[in-house]
């Protein structure tokens, strides 16, 4: 059974703005990345999955249920972490998570036990008796995650979980999400506009743009063919381009940098040697993170008009 399945799903707001159009895909268990630029319709999709919005056309099924009809049964089995701040500042974290567990239907004693367990899992055990208002952004994100996880959902919907975090915080949050997907055995849908960031932890990806499906595939088939090395030299990039092209490498100039298609690990050495031979000074040689934009650029010709 797919976690989330949509058939020709459409959502228009006030019959004017089209947030989602003709969206058909199926998400299987695992850690699924839902990528798209801001405003692509990711949050709308999540709200449709929770039954908070009703589709204006087509169908959506979550855990085999229709959220429009069985909204409360779906929501009892799903955890949701919203994108924006949503915590009451003058409550103590442990009490807040306990309260949310009870609203999810857990009996009092169980709720308390699960709340402190969950806060421990997200790394807030020591600080759990402090007021949320005094927490850092990173700690607040963890509380948000804890309240989504506290009732042991079958499916976790995370809307931009790394929002507002510094690089170390982002990494920690993503590791946590990865652990939830693997060790905890809970399926996760992670929304992000940064493909490069979530591709590390996802087993499959759904890319949407302007409310339409761009691609839905396992991670390997989507990004493997696309590894690029970014090379930056001080001067004479043209000579390097020519020299690399002569060796049969695929090179493209992108502003000040050169993008070299990486077929195997050997390419690093060949670039280094070529740069040395030309006596240039190498500034940067790194594997380029995928951007959502790359997915769009690489679209097959025929599909171009889909999101035009």
């Amino acid at each position, binding site marked *: 059974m797919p976690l989330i399945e949509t058939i020709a799903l459409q959502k228009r707001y006030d019959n004017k703005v089209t947030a989602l159009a003709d969206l058909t895909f199926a998400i299987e268990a695992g850690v699924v990345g839902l990528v798209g630029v801001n405003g692509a319709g990711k949050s709308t999709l999540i*709200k449709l999955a929770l039954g908070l919005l009703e589709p204006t056309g087509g169908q959506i099924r979550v855990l085999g249920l229709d959220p429009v009809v069985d909204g409360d049964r779906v929501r009892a089995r799903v955890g949701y972490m919203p994108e924006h701040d949503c915590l*009451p500042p003058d409550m103590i974290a442990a009490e807040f998570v306990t309260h949310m567990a009870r*609203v999810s*239907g857990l*009996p009092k004693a169980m709720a308390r036990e699960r709340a402190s367990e969950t806060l421990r899992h997200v790394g807030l055990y020591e600080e759990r008796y402090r007021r949320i208002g005094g927490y850092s952004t990173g700690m607040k994100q963890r509380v948000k995650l804890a309240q989504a996880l506290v009732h042991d959902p079958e499916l976790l919907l995370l809307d931009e979980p790394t929002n507002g975090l510094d690089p170390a915080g982002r990494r920690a949050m993503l590791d946590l999400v990865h652990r939830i997907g693997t*060790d905890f055995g809970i399926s996760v849908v992670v929304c992000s506009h940064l493909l490069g960031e979530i591709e590390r932890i996802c087993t499959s990806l759904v890319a949407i743009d302007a409310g339409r499906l761009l691609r839905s595939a396992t991670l390997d088939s989507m990004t493997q063919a696309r590894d690029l090395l970014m090379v930056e030299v001080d001067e004479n990039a043209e000579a390097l381009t020519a020299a690399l092209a002569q060796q049969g490498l695929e090179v493209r100039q992108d502003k000040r940098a050169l993008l070299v298609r990486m077929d195997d690990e050997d390419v690093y050495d060949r670039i280094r040697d070529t740069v040395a031979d030309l006596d240039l000074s190498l500034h940067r040689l790194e594997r380029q993170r995928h951007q959502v934009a790359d997915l769009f650029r690489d679209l097959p010709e025929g599909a171009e008009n889909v999101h035009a």
Partner: protein
Amino acid sequence: MSTPNTGVIHDIGYQHYEGPRLGRGYSMRSLYLHSVRSAYGLGRSAWAKLLPFALLGFASMASLVLVVVNTQLPTQVIDYVGIVSTFTYAATVFVAVVAPELVSVDLRSNLLQLYLSRPLRRRDYALTKLAALASAVFVLYAIPLLIMFLGMAFNTDTGIGGVFDEVGGLAEGLLAAVIHAALLAALGLPLASLTGRRVFASGMIIALFLLSAPVSAAVMAFGGDTLQNLGGLLNPASMLNGVDQWLFGLNINLAFTGDFGPLYALVTAALIAVGTLLTIVRYKKVKS
């Protein structure tokens, strides 16, 4: 001599929850209890407790003073319904402080969307919050009533019969308190749910309750025969006083009802219904 380490910390990892999942009704009960508690600042910071408990304290002290007055003077000055009727202004201040606490904060901090992503439905949330506010207001009335009951029952000169009289009076007082609490909550909550800013919400409620008082008083003072008797309907406190007069034969007159007592009761019932409906409609629209 060192012994081998026998204490080992096991990380038992993530445990799935196998226990019961209680449904929507339980969700509503949990939210209700939490809301009534937070109305009195329980589970929140010390500042949040200050005003509700100060009001409750003043009301209780006033009740205690009235017990003394009642028992020392030859005739009873004030009865249970009289306490409810005269404490209405304290209750309106309470609503103005607490209603924003119950709903505006949830709007402001986006907490509402966490509630709505759980089994609760929009209407469940609206009705639960309304019930919680009404209950909190009821407690504000009920505790002074209980203090008065204890005081009067211990001071009765007519033995067990006197105690039963007091029980009857207490029951009337509690019934009046239910009506007062329902109306004040049904007027205050829809107003508070319009804004996420606590100050504005309190302001709107204060404006409704206090600014309507002089208008109502002016109509009562300068209106003709009929208008004089209808003026009380323009202010929640005098309207409730009118209901108390008609229903319980209260002889403290904040409003003149004339023969319009039933109308006062009807308007009160209608306003409770409309306020409840408006709250539900409001939460149907609110962004989540």
